[in-house]
């Protein structure tokens, strides 16, 4: 809802800027007319589209389903071919779940964006700040279900919950669940830069299309055996998941 209303406002402002520009064609600032950047997400489990309460298979042949998949994406900015910063957006956080499709990343002067820098989780300074200072609806504010432990451990970087057929009898028997709640500063992970190579054109919207592959969170993890961590109570599994964070986001 919020995303929708923001993009309407964005479009509105841009339209005015465009007309304003046309009226005075000699105005050199016209060339500075910004373009809008959107991030668009496709949610997948392996090659299939993501859906809740739908069967998937892990690397070890175990059948599983999601009923919750929430995580924090930090987009820290863009750098060019020589690693010079093009856009710095240190405090740009998104709470991603499979319902998030398109979000606005702001308006920038025309240029070609090269490498997107990103991370899963919340940086160690922000992670220990009070979530209550953020307004309702902002990514780092209070979420429902909660994405914060309410104590010094800070934000839950990713919360993946669901069912797994542990005994392999084809059913999800009572108690056959997985629950992975990962957080704490030591599980924050930066991903490899994504080479987007996308031009921002004046007055237009450039869409950077990204894939989120939820199966990558469980890469190399046997859900029949390793299926529960709230980080502190199973740091080993939490670290294994965190080490997979860098594979979760890809170019579409």
């Amino acid at each position, binding site marked *: 809802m919020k995303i929708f209303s923001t993009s309407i406002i964005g479009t509105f402002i841009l339209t005015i800027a465009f007309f304003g520009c046309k009226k005075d064609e000699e105005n050199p600032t016209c060339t500075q007319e910004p373009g809008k950047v959107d991030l668009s997400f496709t949610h997948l489990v392996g090659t299939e589209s993501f859906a809740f309460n739908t069967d998937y298979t892990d690397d070890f042949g175990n059948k599983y389903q999601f009923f919750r998949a929430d995580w924090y994406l930090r987009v820290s900015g863009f750098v060019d071919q020589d690693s010079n910063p093009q856009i710095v957006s240190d405090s740009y956080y998104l709470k991603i779940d499979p319902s998030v499709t398109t979000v606005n990343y702001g308006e920038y002067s025309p240029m070609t964006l090269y490498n997107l820098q990103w991370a899963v989780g919340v940086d160690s300074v922000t992670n*220990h700040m009070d979530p*209550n200072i*953020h307004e*309702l609806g902002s990514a780092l*504010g*209070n*979420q429902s279900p*909660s994405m*914060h432990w*309410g104590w010094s451990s800070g934000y839950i970087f990713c919360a993946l919950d669901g069912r797994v057929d542990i005994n392999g009898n084809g059913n999800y028997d009572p108690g056959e669940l997985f629950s992975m709640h990962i957080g704490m500063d030591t599980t924050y992970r930066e991903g490899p830069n994504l080479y987007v190579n996308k031009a921002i054109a004046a007055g237009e919207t450039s869409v950077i299309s990204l894939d989120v592959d939820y199966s990558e969170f469980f890469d190399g993890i046997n859900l029949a055996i390793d299926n529960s961590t709230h980080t502190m109570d199973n740091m080993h599994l939490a670290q294994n998941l965190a080490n997979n964070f860098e594979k979760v986001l890809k170019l579409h």
Partner: protein
Amino acid sequence: MLIALFACGENREFLQYEAQDVSANWIKIPDHFPEIDFPEDNLPSKARISLGKQLFYDPILSLDKTVSCASCHIPQYSFSDTLALSSGAHGGIGQRNATALHNVAYVPRFFKDGGIPNLELQIKAPIEDQLEMNYNMHELTIRISRDSAYQRMAREAYGRDMDAFVITRALANFMRTFISGNSRYDLAQEGKYGFTEAEKRGMDLFFGDDAKCSTCHSGFNFTDNSYANNGSHQVYADTGRARITLKHMDHGKFRVPTLRNCEVTGPYMHDGSYRTLNDVLDSYQRGGSGHWNQDPLIEKIVFSNEEKEDLLAFLKTLTDDSFLTNESFRK
């Protein structure tokens, strides 16, 4: 002063609100207590304290609207309760005894393991704990925003709409008014009360080199706020401070509790496993359980039964009746 005066002309309305309402003076502290270190964004005001009080007693903060903060933090028990374990413990990290909240304004880190750095941040924990209020700050903010009386109070107190900021700041403000410094022990310091002989002997024991109580339970609030393993258990199911630091050397360490009002805050220790003060003193007399990580200060104390009674009599001088019966804390 001059600056304030000039600024006043600039933006009269805002500064009147600041100047009239928001001041550290709203919280009265005894002369022998240190200054309170208020967070910059949450100085007290009458409106803030009364909003906090309203919230503290309101079960609207729990999912099924049956549990309020005061369900576990009851004024006449110095804002603790009488159960060993509250039906839950904050943060989903195991069951603990509800902590008394007197002088909470001076606590440097919250919870028995010191897991939370400030009072404002602490409040999210009970609200979202499944075993406590089992609710969610986001949902609560939406629910409470629909209440026009709360909206009015929020604007009056913080000049903004009801939100998570207001809920946490107001509750913290109310709790910071829980100042207890008027016990017989305090009165004796001011020469307004004369200790009995037994109390005097007990005090000597408490501050003496044999029992060493005051090495940990020191200062105006009878705690140095450090973490110690006092050998209350042979096996610590709840590893305490180690849960936060993940360090072996912190196994079984808990924040040294204040002993003010300890007459009414039982049962005792992190899990309420000691029913009476007598049980606690028995443990110290034995020299603790001898747990491998027990603090070396905890050693067998050679007490006569009479001396134990004296120590008990001294501990009871820390009870502040005017605090426990203070009407301004009640609903």
